[in-house]
């Protein structure tokens, strides 16, 4: 589904990614771990196409198409979803409006036509209920006055509504208490399917305990230096990242 080859990227002319290789197949869940500044969030933003993240070498193909040729909205319509580490607040736009605009943009792209008001309401209320999100949050402005946990649950709600093929979550677990973490993890697990793949960027193992990823990769200085299964996350938890950074370049996932 996703094939990243020798990806190099800079931010403000500073090299951040220095040759990432990663293949993700449908149905797989990949976790990317690594110390601060190793390029985890940059990888997520490059995948989503954010301005200011310049790819100067390498290729990314998504379902056989050149992802780097696509505008951010085209990537999303093609099935990519980025869950933000710091979801933005948009005063003046209700959550409901944003969700409706987003879902219908994607449905139009898929040739499905707009969802009518009643069906949309039913769908969004059902998804909110499943994620333990109070209905009143739907009518509030996007993320305005939401706690950290509420913002992250809101990201998961958007993911659930848009039904992407490839989900990229950038530190979705940061700032969550145990209860919120469980809700977010349950939301992710509920969407796991043989047709869908996940790339989950995280600092900590606790989210991975709930999710049990198929692969764990360690990012250091803009490269994947080690790949393995969930036991790699256990090792990192016990020993930190220090031993990784001195290790030679490992095999790619």
């Amino acid at each position: 589904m996703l094939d990243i080859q020798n990806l190099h990227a800079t931010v403000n002319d500073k090299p951040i990614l220095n040759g990432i290789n990663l293949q993700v197949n449908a149905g797989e869940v990949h976790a990317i771990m690594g110390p601060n500044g190793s390029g985890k969030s940059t990888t997520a933003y490059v995948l989503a196409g954010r301005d200011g993240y310049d790819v100067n070498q390498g290729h990314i193909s998504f379902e056989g198409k050149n992802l780097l040729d696509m505008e951010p909205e085209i990537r999303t319509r093609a099935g990519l979803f980025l869950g933000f580490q710091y979801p933005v607040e948009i005063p003046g736009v209700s959550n409901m409006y944003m969700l409706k605009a987003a879902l219908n943009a994607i449905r139009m792209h898929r040739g499905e036509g707009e969802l009518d008001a009643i069906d949309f309401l039913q769908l969004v209320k059902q998804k909110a209920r499943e994620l333990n999100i109070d209905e009143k949050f739907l009518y509030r402005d996007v993320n305005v006055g939401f706690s950290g946990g509420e913002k992250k649950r809101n990201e998961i709600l958007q993911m659930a509504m848009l039904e992407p093929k490839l989900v990229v979550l950038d530190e979705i677990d940061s700032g969550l208490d145990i209860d919120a973490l469980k809700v977010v993890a349950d939301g992710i697990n509920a969407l796991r399917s043989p047709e869908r793949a996940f790339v989950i960027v995280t600092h900590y193992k606790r989210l991975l305990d709930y999710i049990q990823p198929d692969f764990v990769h360690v990012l250091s200085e803009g490269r994947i230096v080690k790949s393995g299964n969930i036991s790699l996350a256990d090792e990192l938890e016990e020993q930190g990242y220090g031993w990784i950074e001195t290790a030679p370049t490992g095999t790619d996932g």
Partner: protein
Amino acid sequence: MEMATQNPIQHFSTDQLNHLQDQLNGMHLPWLAERRQHALSRFIETGFPGRKHEEWRYTPTRDIEKHDFKPVTSPTLVDTNVILKHQISNALTLVFVDGFFQPDLSRIDTSALPVTVTNLASALDQFPDLVETHLDSINQNHHGFCYLNSAFFNDGLFVHIPEFTALDIPIHVIHAGSTSDAMISTRNLVIAEQDSSCHIIETWISNDTPRLTNSVTEMIAADNARIEMNNIQDQGNNSYHISTTWSQLANSAQLTHHGFNFGGQLVRNDINTLLGNNAKCRHSGLTVTRHNQHIDNHLRIEHLYPEASSQVLYKNIADDKSRAVFQGCIVVHKDAQQTDSNMSNPNLLLSNDAIINTKPQLQIDADDVQCAHGVTVGELEQSALFFLRSRGLDEHTARNILTFAFANETIQDITSTELKSMVLDKLLTHFPQSAIRVDWL
């Protein structure tokens, strides 16, 4: 003071001017005839304010002088469907075309109500003493446009709400017009007696012929009275609109004033509010400029007595090569202790060629006050744009939604659902782009 190079009356002889004034409503009243003559001579002395006046330095009044605007003696009828489209259900409605009252298009049957809502010309006939007492009682005729209005106003709105009376249905004034090169002077007088309340909406529409509308409004709120005023200015793109509003709030009186400006080539709104003891005023406004429009809002709020509060929220959105100006001045006089004042002026620039001028001012002569003001000028936030695009929305729509979001706060302030949707429609028509789906809001 320098004489304007050209103004709407320069081609007229004194006899012609006197003749024009003689045709105006209420000239049988000696006091009014005298005031008009005085105002005319003052205007001939001063002309229009220009760049040399600090308060007018951003307003290109010269553009008005390039036209040959003249007083008109009869209206050019307009498509009544356009007027009907702007009506608000259940409102007492007064329609003016080119400043002339249109009884056939109006709906002001107040026979079952203990209030007076009529056109000013009728009030001059029926209640000349009441009008004489209040007219110009707070209008300070502080610039040439006010003199010109005082010299030539023919009609407008007259409202009198007796004490302890709440008028629950709104009063809606629709000003329409289509006479080319017309100079239209309208005058409104609103008197709300003790413990009374009323809600007024004033809508300005026109076609694209060049015109000058020059309006003066006086609103007088006695103790505990409450007035809500909504101005919706959406005239054609060759309209020059000058509006001056004076409000005087007695003890514990309240004024809510919303100003929405979408249309017009050159628009200047002067809003002056005088606050009594414990009075409260809230002024909010939204201005959207495009092409080469110039819209200018000037607020001056005077805290004359203790414990009054004033809240100001004026937002500007400027696109293309347009310019929006905000000047807000809060004056706290020395007896006005415990004043509570907050003025906010957020501005959004949508183009590199658009201009925003903003000048918030505080003049404080009391020592125990709370006064805050804040101004921001910015573009759409990149992080929010990326967020929306990452949710599948194209850049055009994302910009549109964020611009709308910026404006929306001032519209949500409107209490009447019908008026809210009318203003929303206006906003969307004048929107920089056009992808907002109203049915989703």
